[in-house]
């Protein structure tokens, strides 16, 4: 079974849960920006969470499936057409041999995930099928999809149930979002009044590596400050310019800039659904709140897995 790329969309890449365990060698994690929606789409077609999906950014591809199968699109909401008929997002849909999936207008969020029963079958590089755009490996030749590409699909487990529907794991942002953060101990605390409760805007060059934010300047009297260490997803970095950068899936493994706060795991998927031009606000929270928010999201996704039809 093959999937042919009839039209690629501006930035469609193969992603999974990321390339963990190799950051000590400078190898970035990558993976789906919104792992929640990636997992939800996989669930709908009966795939394990680590199966590869296609991450669609802002505008969608047109894909043709050589054999009958079940597909689902999770995450950002698009007007979809399956075999020429309007089809819902967030629902498992049957396709006949030669059937096409086409993306229309985006109505909420920024990134959608296309799952197919069996998952996109590509060689694992350092344990992952995710595309590393900076280093040009993983996914399909380490690059976004192009017209005429063909992708192999693995053997389906048979657990796909067409018609099955999931609610999104969180409300999709429309134009902006508040993201909760944990403060970095020993950070320059004079930054916080300028970081919290203020609106920042995602710059046009924001991408899978990071979101370049403009808003109140976070330039610091102590630009070197803090301890240098590895850079988890969600780290808010402040380069000397004072314009913060929110590090996302394709971030480098280490960074030397001050990092006053880190977006909590439960809100990374929300961040992933923001687009250039959207606003973002940061709000401090406690570790206990962060963990509880993560547990609540996990419960929701597990409950839907067991209960939803």
């Amino acid at each position, binding site marked *: 079974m093959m999937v042919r790329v009839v039209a690629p969309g501006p930035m469609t890449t193969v992603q999974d849960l990321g390339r963990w365990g190799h950051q000590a060698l400078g190898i970035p994690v990558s993976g789906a920006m919104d792992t929640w929606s990636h997992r939800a789409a996989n669930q709908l077609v009966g795939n394990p969470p680590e199966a590869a999906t296609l991450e669609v950014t802002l505008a969608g591809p047109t894909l043709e499936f050589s054999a009958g199968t079940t597909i689902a699109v999770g995450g950002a909401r698009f007007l979809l057409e399956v075999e020429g008929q309007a089809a819902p997002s967030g629902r498992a849909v049957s396709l006949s041999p030669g059937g096409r999936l086409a993306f229309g207008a985006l109505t909420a969020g920024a990134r959608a995930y296309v799952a197919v029963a069996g998952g996109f079958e590509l060689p694992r590089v350092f344990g992952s099928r995710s595309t590393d755009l900076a280093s040009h490996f993983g996914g399909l030749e380490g690059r976004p999809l192009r017209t005429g590409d063909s992708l192999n699909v693995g053997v389906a487990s048979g657990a796909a149930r067409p018609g099955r529907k999931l609610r999104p794991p969180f409300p999709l942002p429309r134009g902006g979002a508040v993201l909760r953060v944990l403060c970095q101990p020993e950070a320059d605390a004079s930054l916080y009044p300028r970081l919290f409760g203020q609106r920042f805007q995602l710059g046009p060059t924001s991408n899978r590596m990071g979101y370049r934010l403009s808003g109140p300047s976070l330039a610091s009297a102590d630009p070197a400050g803090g301890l240098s*260490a*590895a850079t988890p997803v969600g780290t808010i970095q402040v380069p000397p310019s004072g314009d913060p950068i929110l590090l996302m899936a394709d971030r480098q493994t280490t960074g030397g800039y001050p990092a006053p706060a880190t977006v909590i795991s439960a809100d990374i998927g929300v961040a992933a659904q923001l687009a250039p031009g959207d606003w973002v606000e940061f709000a401090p929270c406690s570790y206990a709140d962060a963990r509880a928010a993560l547990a609540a999201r996990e419960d929701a996704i597990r409950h839907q897995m067991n209960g939803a039809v």
Partner: protein
Amino acid sequence: MTPPEIDGGGSAAAAWRVWRCGDAALAVGCDAELNPDVNAKAVEIARQVRAAGLAGVRDVVPTHSAVTVYVDPLVADTAALSDRLRRWAASAEPETLPGRELTVGVRYGGPGGPDLGAVAAFAECSLDEVVQRHAAARYRVFMLGFLPGFAYMGVVDRRIAMPRRQTPRVAVPARAVGIAGRQTGIYPAVAPGGWQLIGTAELEPFRLDGEPACVFRPGDLVRFEPRSVEAP
């Protein structure tokens, strides 16, 4: 993103502490950069964390003077991990496994070393003396980062420790050998970069089909061997 700045301070006895980096990582570290003893301790702590095989640990990343441990917050017992990191930091001796010794041939200057003359001017010496000083030291791989396989090595002879360029180059060639203050390294791939480029390495630090793909590991000991010296 830029590499960490160097303060040259700290010692192996510096105060190690544990802190959270968001809700999905803990770090243990101290204030010291380019200190081989501190870094050796970080490498050893990272080895012990990996060897312990704790539930919920997703990745372990030693840097100059810290180790970041990535966890699944719903699986890992972060309070227990935090205690263990503190204990390891208190007890770890600088690495029990000595670093591997590696030698890298370098063609100094020429088209791949456009800044060799600038470094000579900075050091007020000849091109040959820059090369001799760069090749005389045995460098420690402190950490990897920036690009897959990029090793931050030190400590560069103070005399030739020229700071980064004011304006980074848009595209540094692969295998270029650079100096940035007291650090030196080899670009594994074409990338933007601000290091002073003094030559071209004979070795590719990162090859996807290589065995292993990344030549360098934290704690390795590296010597550069001049193959030729040309005016840039």
